[in-house]
C-alpha cells in the first residue's frame, strides 16, 4: 500500500476549494464505479517509457482515452481507441451536456488525468472545477490542487508504484 496523500505542498493557492488527496486504491475504485469515465493523457508521458506502459495498461482495463498534445504518438497503434484532442478544447466540451463525447456515446462523468504539465493542467482543471459538476481525478506525480481528487507530490519511484496499485484496483 502506497500512501500518496502525504505531501500536498503547493506554490500558490486558488482559494478555499482544494483537491482532496487520494490513495491509489480509492482512485482506482472510483474509476471502476464511474458510469462514463475518460482518461486524459498528456504529452509528458512521452518523457518516460514506463509511464506510457502504465497508461496503456489503464486503457486496456476499459477506460476510454483522450490523447492531448502529442501523446497520441505513443498511443496510436496500441488498439486502445485513443483519440487526439486539444486539452483546452476538451475542457470546453466536457462542460457541454450536448457533446457526444469522443466516440459519440455521450458526455462523461469522471475524468482521469495523467501526463500533464502541472501549471497547464491546473488551469484546465480550474475551469472544470468552477463551471461543471464533473469529478476529476489526477493521478500525476504532482499534487493537482484544482482536481476533485489528486495524488500528492511523489518521488518518481513511489509514483510508479502508486500507478501499479491504481491499475490493480481497476
Amino acid at each position, binding site marked *: 500500500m502506497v500512501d500518496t496523500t502525504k505531501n500536498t505542498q503547493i506554490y500558490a493557492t486558488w*482559494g478555499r476549494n482544494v483537491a482532496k488527496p487520494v490513495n491509489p486504491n480509492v482512485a482506482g475504485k472510483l474509476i471502476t464505479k464511474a458510469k462514463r469515465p475518460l482518461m486524459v493523457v498528456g*504529452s509528458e508521458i512521452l518523457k518516460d517509457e514506463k509511464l506510457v506502459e502504465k497508461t496503456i495498461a489503464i486503457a486496456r482495463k476499459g477506460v476510454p482515452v483522450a490523447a492531448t498534445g502529442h501523446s497520441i504518438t505513443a498511443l496510436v497503434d496500441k488498439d486502445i481507441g485513443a483519440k487526439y484532442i486539444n486539452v483546452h478544447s476538451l475542457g470546453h466540451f466536457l462542460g457541454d451536456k450536448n457533446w457526444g463525447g469522443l466516440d459519440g456515446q455521450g458526455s462523461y462523468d469522471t475524468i482521469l488525468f495523467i501526463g500533464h504539465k502541472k*501549471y*497547464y493542467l491546473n488551469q484546465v482543471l480550474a475551469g472544470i*472545477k*468552477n463551471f461543471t459538476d464533473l469529478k476529476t481525478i489526477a493521478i500525476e506525480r504532482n499534487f493537482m490542487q484544482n482536481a476533485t481528487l489528486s495524488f500528492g507530490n511523489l518521488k518518481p519511484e513511489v509514483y510508479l508504484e502508486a500507478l501499479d496499485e491504481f491499475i490493480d484496483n481497476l
Partner: protein
Amino acid sequence: IVGAIEKKAKEEGVEVGPTPKPGISGLRDWDYTLLSRYQPVYTPVCDQCCYCTFGKCDLSNNKEGACGINMEAHQARETLLRVITGAAAHAGHGRHILHHLIHLYGEDKPIEVGPSNLIAPNTQAVTGIKPETLGDLEEVMDYVEEQLTQLLATIHAGQEGAAIDFESKILHGGMLDHVGMEVSDLAQISCLGMPKSDPEAPLVEIGMGCIDSSKPVLVVIGHNVAGVTNIMDYIHDHGLEDKMELAGLCCTAIDMTRYQTDQGQKPQAKVIGTLAKELKMIRSGVPDVIVVDEQCVRADVLDEAKKLSIPVITTNEKIMYGLRNRSNDSAANIIEDLSTFKEPGALILDFDVLGEVAPELAIKMSKIREEMGIKALPGDDELQELSAKCVQCGACEMDCPDNLPIMEAMRAGVDKDFSKFEYLHDKCIACGRCDQACPKDIPVLNMIEKASQKLIREEKGLMRAGRGQISDPEIREEGVNLVLGTTPGIVAMVGCSNYPDGTRDLYTVADEMLKRNYIVVMSGCSAMDLGMYKNEDGETLYEKYPAKFLAGNLINVGSCVSNSHITGTAIKVAAIFAQRNVSGNYEEIADYITNRIGAVGVAWGAYSQKAASIASGCNRLGIPVVVGPHGSKYRRALIGKPYQEDDWKVYDARDGSEMPIPAAPEFLLTTAESIEELLPMLAKNCIRPSDNNMGRMIKLTHYMELSQKYLGHRPDDWYKFVRTETDLPLAKREELLKILEADHGWEIDWKRKKILSGPTMKSDVSSQPTNVKRLCKGEC
C-alpha cells in the same frame, strides 16, 4: 466629433463607413456574431475576487460575490483588465514618442512609411481618419485614450454584470491596441530613419555571445527607443562606435537596430535578446552602465545592478526606480556622482543630457569596474561547493514556473558533472524564482549561467532588422493567393519569451512552415529568438529565406508595436486586393478577413498583458491566435464547437442564403501543449471558406502531412474539409476516395474519380461568404 471626420473625408473624396471612432457598443453586434461561434472558456487563475473592499469574495463554482458578480463575468473582467493594460502600455508608449517626435519635428512632419497609399490601415479602419502628418496622429491617440478610460471605468465594481458584454469590451480593447501600436510605429518609422517596408532590411548581430566584453558595454533595456536615439547620435558624432559596445534587450534593441538604416546604412547596435536574457546579462557582470526606458524591464534591475556596481539610468516616467531626477543637471555632475557611487543611478528625462551621460559613463565605469575586480558569477571551483550545499528539499523546483529538474543538476554537480545545468540553460527563462525559494541561499540561476558559459559564448546569430509594414504593391501581388489559398497561409509568430520548452521550438516551427510555403511573419521577442539558431549550413532562417511578402518568405516586421502591421496586412488585403472601403468600416473589413484570409497568430512564449491585447485585436478581425501552455493563465480562451453544426454557417452575400462552412478556424484564442500539437493546428486553422480547390487541396495536404509527421496519425476530421474531389491531396486522391466511401458512406463515381454525394459543403468559388446580414444583396 464624428461629424468632423465625415466632413474631412468628403472633402478628400473618401467614403466613410458606418462606424468611425466606434464607442464601446459600436461593434457589439459584430462581437456577438464572433462570440456565438467562439465561446469564452474560462480557466480562472484564482477563485477569488479582490477588486473592492466588500471582498475579497469567493466566487468558486460560479458563485456570486458581494457585488453580485459571478465567476464567469469576473473572469471576463479580469481578462479585460489584462487587455486594456496591454493596450495602455502600447498607447502610453505611442503618446510618449509622438509628443517627443512632434517636439523635435513639428506637427506637419509627414508620415513616411514606404511605398503605400494606405499607410495606417488599423487607424483608418477604426477611426475613419487618414493621417498624413504627425499632428494628425494626435487626434487618433485622443480617441484611443478616451476609449481606454471608458473601458477601465467598466473594471470598477458595480459596472458591467454580463460576461458576454465584458467579452465585447475585450475585443474593443484589443482593437484599440492595434491603433495605439500603429501610431507608435508610424511615428518612429517616419522620423527615425527606420526601414520603410524594406524586404532588404539589414541583418543584425544578436546574442549574448556577440558582445565584446573587453570594451565598455552600455546596455539598454525596454521598448521605447526615443531616448536611446540620442545616445546613438552621441556615439556616432563622437566616433565612439569602435570604442564601446552598445547592446539592447527587448524591443528597444529591435528599434535601435532599425534606427537610421533606411538608406542602407549598417545597424549601429547589437541585440542581446529577450526579457529572458535580462537577468542573465546583468548577472554576468558585463554591462558597465544600464539604461532602461519602459515596458518588459525586470523590476529588480536596480537592485541587481547595484550588487555589481553597475549604475542604472532611468529615462521614462513609467519606470523611475525612486532615483533622483537629474534632468536639469550637467552631464559632468551626474557622471561624477554615479561613477563615485554616491547614488546607484539617476533619472534623466532630458534626452540630450542622457545622450552624453550614458556612453561617457560607460567608458568611465569600464575602467573603474575593472580596477575594482568586480566578481559576478561563481568560479569553476565554487560550482561543486554550491551543489554540495543543496539539501534536495525541492523548494526551487516547486517554485520554478516550469518545474525544471534543478535538484538533479545539483546532485550531478556534487560529482563535478555540470552538464545538467547546461541542459537547463535554454529552458530557463531566468526569472530568478529559484533563488528566492532556496532556503540555503544557493544562487541557482548564477550556477546555471556559469555552467553554460561555453554555450553562451556561442550564442551568436543574425536577425533581420524590422522592415515595417507590408506595402501596397506587395499586397497587390500576393493578396489573390492568400484569398484563394494557393499561398497556404500566414503564420505570425509574435510575443514574448516565456516558452514551455526552450527557444529552439520557434526555429522548428518557422522552418517547417516556411518549407511548406507559408508566409512566416515575426515580431518582437520571437523575432529575436528565431535568429539565435543555425541550420547544418550555419545559416539562420533569416539568411536561408528571403524577406518579401510572398509564399515561403520570412519577414520581421519589427518590435512589439510593429505587430499592428500584421493586422494591417490583413486589412490591406481587404482594402487593396478586394477594394473594400476601409475608413470607419471595421465590421465589413473584419468580416472579409474572417472568411477569406488564412492567417494564424502564434504567441508561443506569451507572458505579457500586451500579448493578450494584441491577440484580442487579431480576434476582433477574425484572426485566430494560439498561445503556448502558459497562455492558459490568461484565464480565457475563445473556442468553437466543431460538433455543433449550426455554429458553422454564413450567408452568401449574393442572395443572403445560408451556407455551411468548414470549422476553421476552430478557435479565436486557444493554447497548445507542444509544438508537435501546434504544427498541424496551424495548417488546419489556415483553412477558410474562400479557398478555391487548389488552395483547399494545398492546405489540406499540409494539415494531413503535419498530423502524420508530428502526431503520427491521419487526423480524424480531414474529410470534413472536402467539398469535392479536387480538394483532395493529389498524391493520395485515390486512397482517400476509398476511405470516404468505406468509412464515411460517400458516393463515388469511380470511373470519373468524382464525388457524387457526401460533402456538406458545396464548392463554389463565386460564393461570397459573410457573417453580416446587412452586407447581403437586397439588405441595405
